[in-house]
Structures are given as structure tokens and as C-alpha cells.
């Protein structure tokens, strides 16, 4: 589904990704771990198409098609979703209205009619229940005044509503208390299916206990330093990253 082939990317003049190659197939869950500053968030933003990141070598393919030149919104509407580490606050824009706007953008990109509020509401309520969130979240402004944990849970709600093919979740588990972590993991497990691919960017084994990955990769200095199965994460938990990067 997603293939990165020797991707080099930089922000301003700082090279961050230095030959990242990765293949993620439908039905798989990949975990990407690695020390701070290794390029994990950059990987997510490069796949999203953020303008600050310049891909100066290599190719990114989604379902066999190069997406290097695609706009951010076109990538999203093709089925790529990023759960952000720091979701942006947007005061004045109602959360439910935002979800409908995004939902309709995707429908329209697929030549389907936009849904009005009345048509969209039942879909939204079902997903809200799946995300174990309260109605009050829908009435509030998008992420505005949300706690760190609430923002992360709102990202999971968006993922469930938009039903992307690929979800890259950037440290969605950090800053969560134990109950919230379990709820977020529940959401991810509901989304997990043979048609969907998931990439979890995380520092902690505790998420991987709840969402069992098929593959674990260590990203260090802009490329994959080591790949393995779930046992690799346990090794990292015990020994840290030093043994890999030295």
C-alpha cells in the first residue's frame, strides 16, 4: 500500500531523512521506534505532504502511484491519514462541522454527493460511540481548549470517521493516562482490518502491548537501522537504542 524507496528529505537546509525505505501492506501493523530526532515525525509529515519538507531524492508510492507531487488534501482524499503528535487548535470551528467538512471533502473527491448535517449525524454518532467519546466533544471547537489526551482521542475519532486506508499515528499514546491509552488502543484495534494499514510511531511498549504490531522498525539518523517482529520492541524496552546506533 505504502512504499518509501530511498527517501531523502530536508527541512530548510537540514537533511533529516537520509535514505528511508519502508513497505507497508494492507492488513499490516508496523511500529516505528527510535531515539528523539531520528526523523519519525518527519516521516509522517513527508507522507502527508507538508510544504516545509522537501523530498530531494527517492520516491513515495501509495497503491502503486507516486504521490511525491500530490497536494496534501489529495493525498488525504486518496486515503492517507496522519494522527498528529500535537493536533492543532482551531477556535471558532465546531468539531462536528469540521468532521463533516472533511468527510464531505473525501466523498466529493470520490464523486459522491456531500451529506448535510442531518444525513451525517447518525454516522458521526456511531463513530463517537466507537471512540468512547462524549457528545460534548462534538459541540466544542476543534481541539480548542482540549487537554493533551482529549486531542489524541479526537484524532482517533477523526480516523474512525474518515476511514482511511492508511493511518500513521504519531505518538498518539504519549501524554495519555492508563484509561485513555486503553480507549485509544481500542479505537485502533477496531480500525485494524485486512483492508487497512497502520503505522504506529511510539516510544513505549505499553501501546504495543495493547495493539500488537506485525513489524517493528528502529529509525535512527534518518533511515531504518533495524527491522524485526514484536520481540524487537521488547529488546529496545530492555536495552535502549545505544546498541543499535553505535
Amino acid at each position, binding site marked *: 500500500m505504502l512504499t518509501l524507496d530511498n527517501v531523502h528529505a530536508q527541512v530548510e537546509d537540514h537533511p533529516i531523512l537520509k535514505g528511508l525505505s519502508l513497505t507497508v501492506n494492507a492488513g499490516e501493523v508496523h511500529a516505528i521506534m527510535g531515539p528523539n530526532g531520528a526523523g519519525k515525525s518527519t516521516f509522517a509529515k513527508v507522507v*502527508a505532504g*507538508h*510544504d516545509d519538507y522537501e523530498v530531494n531524492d527517492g520516491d513515495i508510492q501509495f497503491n502503486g502511484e507516486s504521490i511525491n507531487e500530490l*497536494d*496534501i*488534501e489529495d493525498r*488525504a*482524499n486518496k486515503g492517507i*491519514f*496522519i494522527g*498528529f503528535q500535537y*493536533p*492543532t487548535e*482551531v*477556535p*471558532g*470551528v*465546531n468539531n462536528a*462541522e*469540521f468532521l463533516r*467538512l*472533511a468527510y464531505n*471533502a*473525501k466523498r466529493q*473527491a470520490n464523486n459522491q454527493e456531500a451529506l448535510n448535517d442531518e444525513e451525517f449525524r447518525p454516522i458521526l454518532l456511531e463513530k463517537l460511540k466507537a471512540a468512547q467519546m462524549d457528545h460534548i466533544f462534538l459541540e466544542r*471547537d476543534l481541539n480548542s481548549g482540549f487537554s493533551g489526551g482529549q486531542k489524541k482521542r479526537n484524532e482517533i475519532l*477523526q480516523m474512525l470517521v*474518515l476511514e482511511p486506508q492508511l493511518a500513521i499515528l504519531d505518538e498518539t499514546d504519549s501524554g495519555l493516562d492508563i484509561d485513555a491509552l486503553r480507549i485509544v488502543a481500542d479505537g485502533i484495534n477496531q480500525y485494524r482490518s485486512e483492508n487497512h494499514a497502520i503505522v504506529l510511531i511510539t516510544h513505549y511498549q505499553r501501546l504495543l502491548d495493547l495493539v500488537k504490531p506485525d513489524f517493528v522498525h528502529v529509525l535512527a539518523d534518518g533511515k531504518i537501522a533495524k527491522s524485526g517482529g514484536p520481540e524487537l520492541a521488547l529488546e529496545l524496552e530492555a536495552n535502549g537504542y545505544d546498541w543499535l546506533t553505535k
Partner: protein
Amino acid sequence: MSENELEELNKEAYKYGFTTAVDAITLGRGLNEDVVRAIAAARKEPQFMLDFRLRAYEIFKGMKEPEWAAVHYPPIDYENVQYYSAPQKKEESDAAPSYDSLDDVDPEILRTFEKLGIPLDEQKRLSGVAVDAVFDSVSITTTHQQKLSDAGVIFCSFGEALHEFPHLIERYLGSVVPASDNYFAALNGAVFSDGSFVYIPPFTRCPLELSTYFRINNVEAGQFERTLIIADKGSYVSYLEGCTAPQSSKHQLHAAVVELVTLDDAEIKYSTVQNWYAGDKETGEGGVYNFVTKRGACRGKRSKISWTQVETGSAITWKYPSCILLGDDSVGEFYSVALTNGHMQADTGTKMIHIGKNTKSTIISKGISADHSSNVYRGHVNINPKAHNSQNYTQCDSMLVGKQCTAHTYPYIDIRTNDSTVEHEASTTKLSEDQLFYFKSRGVSEEEAIQAVVTGFCRDVLDVLPLEFAAEAQKLLTLKLENSVG
């Protein structure tokens, strides 16, 4: 971005920037007593009007241009402005005060209004809205006359009103904004040309929205219109003003005066969507200098005046639509969105003067600044000693777009009673690249994202605009902000 695309964007940014080729009758440049007399003569005005003008001119000569506003511009050469510009009638050569029928109007002018979305002929005109179309210094036509006169409503050009209803004009003109009020009001008093006049008889709800559309066409001329609206006892009217001007590297002077009067239990809702040419976005060259005095007097008990403005264009805006709450239990409202981009400067806000008992005022101001622009809210809430038990609520929000713009808020509050309530809230937010990226990463286009954020920010104001103009205002705001984020 290719040059063609850029050009397209520029065009879109101000699609009203065209000029119509019509022959104009002007009185040449500069201002003196002869010019003032010539304007009155050209318009065949009654004596009291000429006297009013000459008094205003005397006052103007003794005044200095105000310097307290936070706007900066090179000195205006008042001797280089044309103070009167009337499009020539089809087959007549003398300066004409009014048109008897649309057949007399140069078809180019009718096409201009049609291009602006204001068709004037009987078949195509807007339903539910009566329009007075003002082109440079002259009112072209007023639509829906029959329906209005059936209701007893007077809605016509100022010039026509001077001849048909001189007693009403003489009684109310200058009673809310006297010529001595300020420099630009004095200038307007001396040289104002056309504008609209409205009178709503007692206990009448005006059956249509009334609207005046101001078009500056002559790029050399100033526009000085005067609007007077009187809502008699127990009446109601909703009035909308729209404005555009051609794109020009020269500055055009616009100094209008609007006076509103409400008697007992009457209500006037006055809405403005202002979209003058604001100057070149990159260099700041050209654009309209807008020095406008708008004021309403709630003379009657329980009367109400509500100002709603969406300001998106003018190189300089100097404008404070205000309410004098004289009648007991009267209500004043000010809802404003002021958007500045490019090199625009806006110093705008309101004055709420509480004089009667139990008077109430509400001020909701939303300022959006982008690019290199400067956006100032200046407000004055005054509770006089006899205005017992009065209330004011002020909310003043600023949104910054990009890193070069500025937003300032200057609220003046003067309370002379100890039983009144005055509240003031303010906030500042930013429309950031991060927000746009977040929307886009969810599949939403930049245009829709800006619209969602800006509409959310301005909702309190857009909600009180007449419906058909709210959608237009929303689009206008979005259009102006595209390419400003970052």
C-alpha cells in the same frame, strides 16, 4: 506559480476594478465658494440647501484635518480633487440633477451595474430588495418605486428628495451629524452630491429591504454622498449599502455622511458591505481613502439602531458608526468585521453615547489583519449622568494572519453613573499555516479551510447580516485572505 495564474489571482482579488467609459460633467478641480455654489446650481437646489452648504464650507475652512487616528498617508491635495462628477445624459449637455427614466441613462452605466450584480431594469431587478444606484455623484435610478409608495415609504435619491420633500430634509439634515462635527463632515456638508433618502411613516414595516449601491467611476473625482434615513414612530426598515470603485494607481477620496433618526419604538437596521478598491496589494499604490461619518440618533423611547458592517476594502478606513441613545430604553448595536490586507490601514469602531435611562448597547468587533496591514478598533462608550441603569457589552476580537500585520484596540470607557453595567472582553487569535495544514491533511482545500476559520471567527457578525449578503460577505472574506497565510 506562473505569471498567468498570478494575473488571474490579481484579477479575482478585485474583480470590480474596471472603469466604464462615459462622458462626465465635472466642475474642474479644487474647492472654493464658487464650486460650492456651482454644485447647488447644477443640482437646482432650494435656497436652504445652498445656505447649509455655504455654512459648512465656512466651517471647513476653519478646521484642520484630524491626526489622532492610527493611519498614515501623504497629505491629501484638496485642490486637486474633482468635487462633482456626473455622467452625461444621453442627449443633453447641461449638468442634470436626476434621470426621469432609465431610457435617459447611458446604456454603459446600466451595463456597469449589471456587471456589479445589480441589474436595474424592471425584468431583471433583485426581488425583495429595492435599490438606489449611485454612480459617481448622481443617483441613476431607484427600483421598486410602486411597491414602496403603496406602503407610504419614501426611498429616493437625495436630489429628488430635495425637490419633493424639502421640509423633511430641512428638518433633519445635519441634525445628527452637523457640519461642525469633524473635518470630513464639514467637507461633505459643503460639496456632497447625491445619496439616498428614506422616510418610513408611522407604524409601517418597510415591505422590502432597501439598498444603495455606490459606485465611484471617475478615478479623478471624490465621492461625497449623503444618506438620511428617518424611521417614524413604530416603524422598521432594513437598509443595505454596497460600494465598489475602479482599480487605479491614484487615490480616490470618499467622504460620506450617514444620518439615521429613530422616533418612539422605531428600528433601523443598517448594514454595509464595503469593497472599495484597496490599493495594490504589493506596493500599496492607489485605493480609496474612506473618511466616513455615520451616526444614528435614537430619539424616541424604546427605539433601536443597529449597525452591521463588513469592511474589506479601502486603502484607508476612518469610520465609527455610532449611536446616540437619547430615548429612554433605547438600544444601540454595532456589529463589525474589518478585514485589512495588503497595505490597508483601518481605524474603525464605534461610539455609544448613553443619555436616556435604561439604555442598552452591544458592540461586537472582529478585526482580521493580514499581510502588511494595520487594523485598529477604536471605541467610545459614554454613560451620561442621567443614563441610569444603562448597560453596555463590548467584545473585541482580533485575528492575525501572517507575521507582518498589526492589530490594536483602543477602548475608551467613560461612566458617570453608579448604577450602570459596562463589560469589555477582548481576544487575539492567529490564522496559522499549522491550522491550514491540519485542514488539508484531512482532505479539506485551503479555500474551504480559510472560509471555515474566518466564518467561525466572524459568526456573531455574519449571523446578523441579511441572509443574501451574509453568503456574499463570507466569500469576499475568504477571497481576500487566500495567499495571505504564511
